[in-house]
């Protein structure tokens, strides 16, 4: 209990008056009218969204989301209908995908090899491949010796016309080696 009873009474009265006044003021305020006068965009522009996002525990939110339930509610057919497949395919780097395929082991170890063999194999093709490969081997042999005699650095020589190849050997990516399985008995 307060040592001064007059003060206590005055405080209670002031509290009662304040509560009454605040109640009356709030009742008389039209919040919707005030909200209409507020420039929300300006307020939002002053908000540091990143700081808010940083404070949000996204993992916790995701844990509470029932993804299965959401997926069940999605009409996949309708979604797929809206997808521009042509635009999607245009963005796919097919060459990169093909580069990742191990075509050589595919040809060497699967039925694909025998299919190609039956469709393209001929004595003429085999002879041509051998003649050309031997020719390139001999070309390289003579080029190597000529460069040695002329004291010429092979790396400084152009590989081919500028429109057909990269100007220096360093720009040409190394070809992948044959898969190890090919050599296996």
């Amino acid at each position, binding site marked *: 209990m307060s040592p001064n009873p007059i003060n206590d009474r005055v405080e209670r009265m002031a509290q009662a008056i304040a509560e009454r006044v605040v109640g009356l003021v709030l009742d008389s305020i039209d919040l919707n009218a005030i909200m209409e006068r507020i420039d929300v965009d300006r307020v939002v522009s002053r908000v540091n969204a990143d700081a808010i996002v940083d404070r949000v525990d996204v993992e916790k939110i995701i844990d509470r989301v029932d993804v299965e339930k959401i997926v069940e509610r999605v009409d996949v057919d309708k979604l797929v209908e809206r997808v521009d497949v042509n635009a999607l395919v245009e963005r796919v780097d097919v060459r990169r995908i093909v580069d990742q395929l191990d075509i050589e082991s595919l040809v060497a170890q699967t039925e694909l090899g025998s299919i190609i063999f039956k469709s393209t194999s001929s004595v003429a093709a085999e002879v041509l491949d051998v003649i050309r*490969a031997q020719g390139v081997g001999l070309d390289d042999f003579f080029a190597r010796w000529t460069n040695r005699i002329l004291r010429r650095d092979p790396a400084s020589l152009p590989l081919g016309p500028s429109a057909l190849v990269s100007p220096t050997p360093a720009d040409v990516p190394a070809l992948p080696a044959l898969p190890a399985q090919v050599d296996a008995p």
Partner: protein
Amino acid sequence: MITPPPPALYEGRQGHYAGAVTRLVAFGADVGASWGLYTLGLGAVSLTVALATGRAFSVGRNQVPTLIVLVVWEFLYFAYQWALSGKTIGMAILGIQVVSADGRPMAPRQAVLRTLALPLSVAIIGLGFLGILVQRERRALHDLVAGTAVVYSWDARAARLRWLARQAPETTGS
């Protein structure tokens, strides 16, 4: 066991300057092919003349006309094929092709110029061909005159796959 392909099949050479041996063999094949076709044509003409006139056609008695025909034929053989596809029969067999010095397809004018300059390379004891070995872009005298270069056009990667495919039946058991 699968035999690995020859080393030359590991490296793609399309567009690279062709070497001396390949070019020499291709040229030899072309000389053989053009002479073979010329001889066949001459034989056909002799037979036709013999059948039509009843007299045998003698090359010895018609040296100048047959020489002129030979020169024209050789010119047409090389110029026409180079203008058409950049490669002759011999070049197609060896997998090489003539292109402009910058790599673009050769113009018909360059094909004609190259054909006219080719005898120059042969005439100076074949020294015109020396450029294929010593010149940085492996260009012979007639290449320098016509502004052309010879490049590999065969696909080593496809040849490698064919090689592997030929080995495939042994392993797949098909």
